């Protein structure tokens, strides 16, 4: 039976009314959040706010909201105008792509392709686009083995494949930055978050984390850090349309009217039986940091720098992650950077200017990241071509029984 539009029209009308009401509510919350950002100590003392921030950390986690820490010597609502246009600099960005293991395939393998771009601006403009495919096919390459106990192995699943890819992207970034002529300031860009939440829980053994994080990603960061001794290296990760709530949750802590929440805990005070009604929702519910900063920042401006408190970051050493928000003109983007970048005002200024230049050149998204993606992407066509070459090579080596019956049935479609 067809849809009865006559019957659904009143429902649509109700939906529109409810949406309209929610928009009004949301705006009220946003205004309240902004007021809280301008005056974070309206309800609490600085010391209490500090206690509440600490209370949001494990293992106690009395405050259930994960939040950023307070900026270092900056106001929460600090705004930095766009610095002067930067004319002479280099940018390197890398990205990655993959061919995932095919369970139906003749051979078990996966392929990671890291790609990127280097561009130099100024009197000697030049560019280089690069990509490196890495095929993992040996049984020992498909697992991560505990160096202290070779019986302990972890299969590289889809999640770890993404982590391995991130390591390769960061390594490719460090390698290419290392080749740039000395003197020139460098913007080194990745995309996505630097905070690898995946290692936070108990999903993977410590040896997996050590291999991919401490001896992988963070080692690549170490190389960039070492280069920053002799040149300006503004290393950051650019997050488009960020969904994080770290600053908004900080406002919850500042807004909460319940004295002693940092000792008693949200779970007690605002549980069904407690006196609280989750008043912090009034400055936070349904809001992201990007919503908040879209109210605060004009085009080209950036926010203060907030240290993240994500527990995994405690392993990052000098690379503890800080973040700020930038109004690029097209969106509020989040920039994540290691502490050694965040603590250098001149490097942050350069990064701010260079990011704006990149977004302008890339029509709203950093040009270097766009091109890095293009350099790295493995298209469906690429995958098919790769599969064809693989199949014919295996046949040439007398291993041509081929794919599973199911996979073949998909490839040769007939009636």
């Amino acid at each position, binding site marked *: 039976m067809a849809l009865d539009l006559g019957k659904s029209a009143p429902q649509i009308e109700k939906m529109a009314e409810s949406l309209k009401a929610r928009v009004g509510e949301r705006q009220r919350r946003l205004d309240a959040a902004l007021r809280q950002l301008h005056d974070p100590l309206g309800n609490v003392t600085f010391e209490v706010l500090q206690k509440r921030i600490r209370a949001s950390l494990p293992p106690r986690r009395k405050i259930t909201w994960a939040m950023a820490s307070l900026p270092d010597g900056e106001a929460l609502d600090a705004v930095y105008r766009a610095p002067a246009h930067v004319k002479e600099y280099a940018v390197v960005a890398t990205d990655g792509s993959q061919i995932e293991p095919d369970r139906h395939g003749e051979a078990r393998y996966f392929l990671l392709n890291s790609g990127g*771009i280097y561009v130099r601006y100024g009197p000697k403009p030049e560019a280089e686009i690069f990509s490196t495919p890495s095929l993992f096919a040996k049984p020992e390459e498909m697992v991560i083995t505990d160096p202290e106990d070779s019986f302990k192995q972890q299969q590289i699943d889809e999640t770890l494949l993404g982590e391995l890819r991130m390591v390769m992207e960061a390594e490719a970034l460090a390698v290419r930055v290392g080749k740039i002529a000395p003197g020139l300031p460098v913007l080194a860009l990745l995309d996505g978050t630097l905070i690898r939440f995946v290692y936070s829980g108990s999903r993977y053994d410590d040896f997996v984390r050590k291999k991919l994080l401490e001896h992988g990603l963070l080692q690549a960061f170490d190389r960039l850090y070492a280069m920053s001794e002799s040149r300006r290296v503004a290393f950051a990760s650019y997050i488009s349309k960020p969904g994080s709530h770290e600053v908004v949750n900080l406002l919850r802590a500042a807004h909460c009217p319940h004295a002693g929440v940092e000792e008693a805990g949200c779970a007690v005070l605002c549980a069904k039986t407690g006196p609280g009604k989750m008043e912090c929702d009034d400055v936070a519910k349904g809001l992201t940091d990007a919503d908040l900063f879209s109210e605060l920042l004009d085009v080209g401006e950036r926010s203060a720098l907030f240290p993240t408190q994500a527990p995994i970051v405690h392993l990052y050493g000098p690379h503890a992650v800080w973040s700020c928000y930038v109004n690029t003109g097209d969106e509020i983007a989040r920039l994540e950077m290691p502490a050694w970048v965040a603590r250098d005002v001149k490097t942050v200024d350069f990064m701010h200017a260079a990011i704006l230049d990149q977004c302008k050149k890339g029509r709203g998204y950093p040009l270097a990241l766009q091109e890095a993606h*293009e350099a790295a992407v493995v298209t469906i066509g690429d995958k098919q071509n790769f599969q064809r070459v693989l199949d014919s090579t295996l046949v040439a080596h007398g291993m041509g029984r081929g794919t599973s019956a199911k996979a073949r049935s998909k490839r040769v479609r007939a009636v």
Partner: protein
Amino acid sequence: MTTGKLGEVVEASTASFTVHCHKLGEPPPLGSLITVADGDIHIYGVVHNATTGSIDPSRKALALGEELASADEVYKEHPELTKLLRTDFTALVVGFKDKEEVRHNLPPRPAKIHGFAHIASKKESQDFTKGFHFLEVLLNADAQNRDAALAACVRQAAETQTDKEYLVRAGKELAKLLAQDSRRLNTILRMMKA
């Protein structure tokens, strides 16, 4: 002897070949005589079309210079363009040289993919364009800008020939070949003078 390489053959058939230029935006002029060597054979082609565009067919080039003063500034502000754009040209095969003998005929095989393309040297051009049979190959080709390429080719050939009457003789040859199509003949003759 040939002059510096222009690029590499990336597509080839018996009757034509396409060359990806090593330098962006610098294809040889329309009508240029090009050679591609493959062992003992040198294939000759006449440039009839050139294109510059995005390397990736799914991505088009966009206008970038609204706030800039010149095209040079666009390239300065976007150095990556040199890596994202490509220039190709296509040449119609008009003959080949087998050992030392020049033939105004189609070669036994297409140009080799990745074969280096050069502009024919003065001596090669003199030897190849001395006779006029290559005109017939061009006139009968089914290709874009065929007549304009032919006119430009004859003009360039005349510059390498010692015979001062070369253009006149070429015009007479064309008149014979296009006896049934005076309109086309006149168009070509007009373009030859330009």
